[in-house]
């Protein structure tokens, strides 16, 4: 009784666990139950039950309600799908003028709008692509094919790679100094020499369109949300879901709306990249000191002047960090949208992975990472750069970088011209190194992979078998053995104990959505993989973070490593694991672990670092040892921040598990991948995406509520 009074929370948790296990043991596995491997929707099975809702027939295997809830939301994907098709093909047909056929044509409104939008995107991408690589689509867009046939001189020649490389080095120098300039020059040269120029520039042109557009929309919406509480409230749930929604899942509905190709990819990228931009804009504007705003008002600013001359410039740094985030998301999407036909490095990477040509994949992945790191560092340097005063410099000093670039352009063109004379018969290497004419290391890597496989095959195989048979299979079986009602009780109970009724209701709603969808079993598999990944990642991350924190240099080193790893598009992680472990669950899980360890490590270090220096001194003066300080002072205070790291780790792990479907897993991701090639996949893809997002949000809600309470309790913010 004494104990009960002393630790009431502990006993509440024990009671919850007791109820959970009691339910698990009380409810038997139904005899007819088996994990459905195929896609049940299209197989007619006399054992299935059906129900009709909103005119849609939903087929499912009926079990005891306590074991698995019936898929009462099974109509939702079909319904979304039909609505989308109706919207695209039948809703509001209107007369539109058609340029090509010179006549009016009847077309549904939405179709017309999306087609115009995609045409505009295509034009933008082509414009930049042709500036970098040459071509004639842009000129044709303004004139006609006949005109270009008559005037072949008007074709855009494209920039020689030397100019682009030198130009990026100058920009890097201006933003971040000599080191960054050298990096820019080296990586651009590498890309050119190794024959990846064309796909790299295709990817770059994609990013140069997607990133500015996302920036503009994100900034605009962020400002709107800042000014109006109502807009913010309307945006908030979307932002929340988008943060935990696997980027993969957005592809499917966009496929229906915008078709296949670079333009669709740009639009999807915007959908994914705008939310972080909105959040950071909002954060930055909120952080502007109230007195600065009042000073602006007292200077007689109207609303527009206040926003453009006071608020946005003062919030500059946060907004530019938003730009950095946008660029990173764009890179991630540049690879993923290869699934819907975006050209560039991502497409090559995907192709190479499909053919199991690890060497080629590695080369493409390396190029993406090089450009990603370059743009990441450049945008960060821009964000941290202080404004300089130019008023008292003369024209030459002020414009030396532009002038220098002008000289570079002339030199580059001259070089390319001489090149065209020198390499008369073959390829003009001073203009562009063709894809298959560069130095390739693919064979070397492939041989390396073969060698590793031959040499270590026995060990890898043994490890693989052990992991799958002794760890993963039992864990998966345990997860699937949970009756739905027990899971629900556990989650809702946890919600109640952590955040009270409100939290309990929120997580109950989120869990019910998944439980009532047709994919509960799949969601359990996703959760089991994510849980395994998170457990290992957190163990590694917290340990590594704590160890590195003991020394200043190792702390900075580790943070830099995290920075660089975070820049790699998520797909790149699949290359080395496939190299070692082939196409197995082990590969996916190792990719998950590597990817999710980044936030775990980073937040551990940041959490430990945020412990106030005064407390350190106070502890030292009361004579604690290093261990006492770590366990009595640093861990308790850093713990809330480390829990936020756990939150991020879960999101990262979920993302990777879903991407792992590409290697072949049996979870929600597999269905998302299937939906991509399914004509009626839009609704399924979207609903699946929401399911994954909700898994993330359940944990997000629980952890955030706990952290909020804990921080309040400790009096830190």
């Amino acid at each position, binding site marked *: 009784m004494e104990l009960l009074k002393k630790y009431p929370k502990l006993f509440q948790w024990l009671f919850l666990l007791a109820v959970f296990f009691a339910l698990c043991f009380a409810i038997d596995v139904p005899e007819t139950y088996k994990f459905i491997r195929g896609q049940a929707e299209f197989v007619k099975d006399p054992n299935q039950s059906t129900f009709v809702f909103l005119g849609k027939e939903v087929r499912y295997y009926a079990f005891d309600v306590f074991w698995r809830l019936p898929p009462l939301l099974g109509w939702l994907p079909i319904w979304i799908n039909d609505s989308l098709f109706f919207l695209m093909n039948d809703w509001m047909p209107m007369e539109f003028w058609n340029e090509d056929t010179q006549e009016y044509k009847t077309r549904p409104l939405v179709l017309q709008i999306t087609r115009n939008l995609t045409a505009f995107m295509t034009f933008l991408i082509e414009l930049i692509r042709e500036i970098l690589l040459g071509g004639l689509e842009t000129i044709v867009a303004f004139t006609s094919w006949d005109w270009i046939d008559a005037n072949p001189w008007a074709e855009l020649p494209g920039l020689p790679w030397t100019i682009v490389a030198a130009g990026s080095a100058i920009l890097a120098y201006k933003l971040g100094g000599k080191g960054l300039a050298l990096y820019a020059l080296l990586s651009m040269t590498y890309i050119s020499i190794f024959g990846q120029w064309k796909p790299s520039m295709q990817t770059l042109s994609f990013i140069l369109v997607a990133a500015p557009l996302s920036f503009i929309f994100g900034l605009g919406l962020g400002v709107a949300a800042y000014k109006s509480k109502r807009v913010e409230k309307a945006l908030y749930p979307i932002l929340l879901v988008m943060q935990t929604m696997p980027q993969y899942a957005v592809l499917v509905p966009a496929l229906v709306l915008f078709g296949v190709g670079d333009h669709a990819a740009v639009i999807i990228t915007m959908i994914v990249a705008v939310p972080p931009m909105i959040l950071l804009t909002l954060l930055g504007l909120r952080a502007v*000191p109230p*007195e*600065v705003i*009042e*000073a602006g*008002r*007292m*200077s*007689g*600013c*109207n609303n527009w*002047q206040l926003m453009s*001359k*006071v608020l946005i*410039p*003062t919030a*500059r740094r946060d907004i530019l960090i938003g730009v950095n985030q946008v660029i990173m998301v764009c890179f991630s999407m540049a690879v993923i949208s290869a699934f819907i036909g975006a050209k560039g490095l991502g497409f090559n990477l995907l192709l190479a992975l499909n053919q199991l040509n690890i060497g080629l994949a590695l080369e493409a992945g390396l190029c993406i990472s090089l450009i990603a790191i370059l743009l990441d560092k450049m945008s960060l340097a821009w964000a941290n750069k*202080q*404004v300089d*005063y130019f*008023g*008292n410099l003369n024209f030459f000093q002020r414009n030396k970088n532009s002038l220098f670039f002008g000289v570079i352009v002339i030199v580059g063109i001259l070089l390319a011209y001489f090149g065209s004379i020198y390499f008369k018969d073959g390829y003009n290497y001073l203009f562009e190194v063709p894809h298959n004419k560069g130095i390739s290391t693919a064979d070397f890597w492939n041989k390396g992979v073969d060698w590793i496989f031959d040499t270590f095959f026995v060990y890898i195989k043994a490890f693989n078998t052990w992991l799958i048979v002794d760890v993963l299979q039992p864990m998966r079986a345990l997860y699937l053995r949970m009756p739905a009602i027990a899971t629900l009780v556990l989650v809702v109970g946890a919600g109640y104990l952590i955040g009270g009724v409100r939290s309990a209701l929120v997580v109950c709603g989120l869990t019910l959505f998944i439980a009532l969808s047709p994919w509960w079993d799949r969601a359990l598999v996703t959760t089991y993989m994510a849980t395994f990944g998170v457990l290992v990642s957190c163990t590694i991350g917290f340990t590594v973070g704590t160890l590195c924190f003991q020394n200043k240099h190792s702390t900075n080193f580790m943070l830099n490593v995290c920075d660089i790893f975070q820049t790699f598009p998520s797909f790149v992680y699949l290359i080395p694991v496939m190299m070692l472990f082939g196409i197995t669950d082990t590969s996916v899980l190792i990719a998950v672990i590597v990817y999710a360890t980044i936030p775990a490590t980073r937040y551990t270090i940041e959490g430990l670092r945020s412990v106030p220096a005064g407390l350190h001194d106070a502890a030292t003066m009361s004579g604690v040892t290093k261990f006492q300080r770590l366990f009595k002072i640093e861990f308790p205070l850093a713990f809330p921040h480390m829990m936020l790291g756990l939150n991020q780790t879960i999101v990262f792990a979920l993302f990777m598990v879903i991407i792992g479907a590409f290697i072949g897993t049996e979870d929600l991701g597999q269905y998302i991948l299937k939906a991509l090639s399914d004509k009626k996949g839009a609704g399924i893809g979207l609903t699946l995406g929401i399911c994954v997002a909700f898994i993330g949000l359940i944990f997000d809600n629980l952890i955030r509520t706990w952290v909020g309470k804990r921080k309040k309790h400790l009096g830190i913010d």
Partner: protein
Amino acid sequence: MSEPVIKCQSVYKIFGANAEKMLKDSNGNVDAKTFQENGCIVGVNNASFEVSKGEMLVVMGLSGSGKSTLLRCISRLTDATGGKIFIEGQDLLNLNNKELIDLRRNKMGMVFQSFALLPHKTVLENIAFPLQIKGIKTEDSINKAMDMVKLVGLDGRENYFPRELSGGQQQRVGIARSLAVEPDIWFLDEPFSALDPLIRKEMQDEFLRLQEKLQKTIMFITHDFDEALKLADRIAIMKDGIIEQLDTPANIVLNPATEYVRKFTEEVPREKVLLIKDVMDETTTSDIGDLKVSKDEIIENVAEKILTQEKTVAVTDGKNNIVGSINPAKIINTVFGGRKNNH
């Protein structure tokens, strides 16, 4: 006398969801406690006063006393919940947005506690900012800003960024910016509170020098009673949103209206604050001595002279006419007497 520049009539500022309705129901009888129980916080409670042209009113109060809120009502950075505010006869609360912006662009200047400079602009650009917002040509605004730089003694640093300046220098920029449009009314919200004591004293002297030259109508907010005594023509002492006493520094020191005000005055070295005219007798007696002192002298400066006299000392005005007398005993009484509660 002409129209007062600033005129407040029972101004209320109450924060909370249904503040307006509660204020209406209370019939002007606002009790902070009842309001708090209903989720409203009283910022300013029935403030009425006038500030005439060229006068400096210092509003003094501890943190949370509502002094900054009062200033923000008068500059309309927040809208007052009740009452009327007139700026040069214009009803401030009835101005539309455009008129308000016009008023701020031409008539008002404000200095902030945390300086509130724009981090991305140089000293010169910061000072020129209100002018450029008004739509004045870049060249003219820069010239005008340069004059301001000289006025506050920052010449040579006009191309620095705020981050490169010390606190005192940053506040000089803030002062210059608030003066750039040549406003008639000058609001200063704890301008020197974030500065070190020595710099603070230097800035106060500088501020007095500027005011002598410019003769603005000023509302100055501070939590420092000594600063208030040093600068003010009149002082308003606030507590919990209520103006406890509004009077000249001398009257506040000599006749504190409430127990709260008395606590501030107890520690004040009166001989440094009071003038001869504040303590003299307006009558002249027959046994007057030869020594004459001006009525505008601070007591401290002439105390020694007066105390060495046996007889009553004559007090003169600027034209050397005798307007009163002062007995040495009165000086002793002023400096050492009237502090019963202290020991």
